[in-house]
């Protein structure tokens, strides 16, 4: 592996963590949206609130991490991605603002109409954002982001079959992760009814994800032949692994092994993302830009890795402490 590849790998780890952690927060928003009437959905919404409130901001920073690594280490890729895909990116950004603000507001709102307004805003923007980010990935992976003088088509770069697949897949995967995590959370808190409800949702969304993936095969074959080739050759083991991990999650859920189900669900998602990355390698922008050509100055890549090493020495212990406190149920207080 050369230096640009190492930096790309680091960035990719950031993408994975964003998907696994923040993705589940978005998915929780999806379940909030479909939790039903105020009274009926109250226990579900309460669980979601408790599970994501202390951590969503930290989880969100993975996106910032990915963005700044992309523009610092791969400025030549960052510029065309942002200028071609600015419509879905703007919409994703709007979703991020609305989601974060509405979630914080809902916690402090007491009157009924306000709570409801913030709740709906929070939940619907939790669907909008992953959809748009998935569409962005679809645009990149199907080779619709050109480099050089010409900016790609502002609409067709994301209003296309692969992007729609990416968007739907992202929403479904977020919902799946969230349902699995929330099943385990409900179990830990001893809320049996919610355990059953989320288990049902987890299984349902896993099945939907499987169906979307099958449809996706045909979409990619026609719309993104290069990616399809990569996925079915170099990426094939990972895709098979992902299907296996997904199935294992179903079994584990059925057997009430929720903590293990969490892990296998996460692995299934990691493998899908890994399949995409290996399928596209060595291209950063499918068809138009290789990782090595996208990379910035050598000195900067070295500097990034130094910063990463030093930064992790602070970050990792803090993050571990946060998740340990969270798992032990300590973080349920209030000023």
């Amino acid at each position, binding site marked *: 592996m050369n230096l640009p590849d190492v930096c790309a790998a680091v960035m990719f780890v950031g993408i994975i963590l964003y998907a696994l952690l923040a993705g589940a927060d978005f998915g929780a928003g999806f379940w909030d949206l479909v939790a039903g009437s105020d009274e009926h959905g109250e226990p579900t919404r309460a669980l979601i609130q408790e599970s994501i409130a202390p951590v969503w901001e930290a989880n969100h920073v993975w996106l910032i991490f990915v963005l700044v690594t992309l523009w*610092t280490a791969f400025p*030549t890729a960052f510029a065309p991605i942002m200028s071609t895909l*600015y419509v879905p990116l703007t919409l994703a950004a709007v979703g991020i603002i609305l989601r974060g*603000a509405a979630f914080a*507001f809902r916690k*402090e709102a007491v009157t009924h109409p306000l709570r409801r307004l913030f709740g709906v805003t929070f939940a619907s923007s939790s669907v909008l954002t992953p959809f748009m980010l998935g569409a962005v990935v679809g645009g990149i992976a199907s080779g619709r982001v050109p480099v050089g003088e010409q900016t790609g088509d502002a609409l067709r770069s994301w209003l296309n079959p692969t992007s729609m697949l990416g968007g739907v897949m992202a929403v479904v995967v977020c919902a799946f992760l969230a349902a699995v995590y929330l099943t385990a959370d409900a179990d830990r808190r001893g809320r049996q009814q919610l355990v059953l409800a989320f288990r049902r949702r987890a299984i349902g969304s896993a099945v939907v994800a499987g169906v979307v993936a099958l449809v996706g095969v045909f979409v990619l074959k026609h719309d993104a032949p290069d990616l399809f080739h990569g996925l079915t050759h170099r990426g094939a083991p990972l895709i098979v692994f992902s299907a296996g991990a997904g199935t294992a999650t179903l079994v584990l859920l059925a057997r009430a092994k929720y903590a293990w189900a969490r892990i296998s669900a996460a692995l299934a998602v990691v493998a899908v993302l890994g399949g995409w990355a290996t399928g596209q390698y060595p291209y950063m922008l499918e068809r138009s830009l290789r990782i090595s050509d996208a990379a910035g100055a050598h000195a900067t890549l070295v500097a990034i890795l130094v*910063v990463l090493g030093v930064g992790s020495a602070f970050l990792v212990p803090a993050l571990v402490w946060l998740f340990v406190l969270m798992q032990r149920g300590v973080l349920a207080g209030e000023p």
Partner: protein
Amino acid sequence: MHGVLAVDQPDLFYARQQMAFSLGAHIVLACIGMSVPFLVVLAEWKGQRTGDLVYATLARRWAKVMGVLFAVGAVSGTILSFEFGILWPRWMGRFGDVMGLPFAIEGFAFFLEAIFIGIYLYGWDRLPPRVHLWAGVPIGIAGVASAFFVVAANGWMNDPTGFTLDASGNVTHVNPWSALFNSALWPEAIHMILAAFIVGGCLVAMPYGWAMLRGRRTRYVRVGLLLPLTVAMLAAPLQVVAGDWAARHVAQHQPTKLAAMEGLYETTKGAPYHLGGVYVDNKVKGGIPVPDLLSILAFHDPNAVVTGLAAVPSADRPPVNVVRTAFQLMVAIGTAMLGLGLWMLVAWRRRRSIPRSRWFPRVVVLAGPASVVALECGWVTTEVGRQPWIVWQVMRVRDAVTDAPNIRFGYYLLLVVYAFMAVFTVVVLRRLVRAPLPAELGGPGEPGEET
């Protein structure tokens, strides 16, 4: 044109407006995110040490507000990261690897801030008190660190170093560390961080000033006013010194910006400074001239030569009146803050209490918005004063802008979203302010905090 061509971007104006608007909104929240964690921890610490319910209550109420504003601040910052690429892709594409490093470091500061704010807010009454107190400390430190690094990036735009351009304008010999430690970094960063404490302190004190105006002078109200305001007033005199430092830096490295700050057309020895007035026909009209003052401010020497706007072609000059007015307002407010601090100091030395005058709470209520105005004016001075350059004398704004069509609609959308956010931030904060106090502190209906 150094290897990049200006595109015809009909929406350039909107791109700049969007950038300015979203930065202007973010900076207020960022200042609160830097200073309020320290105020909360200070109050909690006093509360724990003395067992005084007043401090403990203040800490809790401020923390709740901090939680809401932190969330809004974080998302408003995220938008900026998107906008850098969406609006100025040719700037990022060309210089991303030169000036990106501070952002990468800042990313880690954001992580720590977000992690510890989660632990601190939701660990209240759950963690042992000392652990809880200490968990609050990294929030503010990380906030200040993130400001330091983001200002490093801005300093680089004002004083680009750490690379060379070859004959065809390609960026070579990149050294991201020397780009990070550009010469503008220290004066700008220190001035910025002090500003954060002034803004945070004045805003937190504001509602207690309001309560006093309405005749409530309970101890809770007095402490709620005094603690944050003292922090702000300690920063105010330092801010004048830091501002002077910043001005001298500008004089050396960005003479055209300095000339715009005064409205000085011809290069002049012993240049005057005009208080007030407007710049028309290459002259300041209607202001009060103070001889030699600009030379003294810029070089600490009444006979120093100050470069005028005429030294560069008119296409390379910023809009003088915008820069000039903003600078004058900032300096006026900074000086007034100094006065407020002195007033408090005199009253304290005489009677060990805050000034008794009826004017005092009024001034405190005004200081909140005034500090925000000074903050925004400072940034207008810096950013508009840099025009037409996005990277000082290296890249023009119009060469940096995207060539994507119709970006104005993104700006309109953002305006709507921010309006939503602003309205409901106020609604939610009002609710928090009106939450009843514990009965020992005078029962329900007392104000808590408002921003």
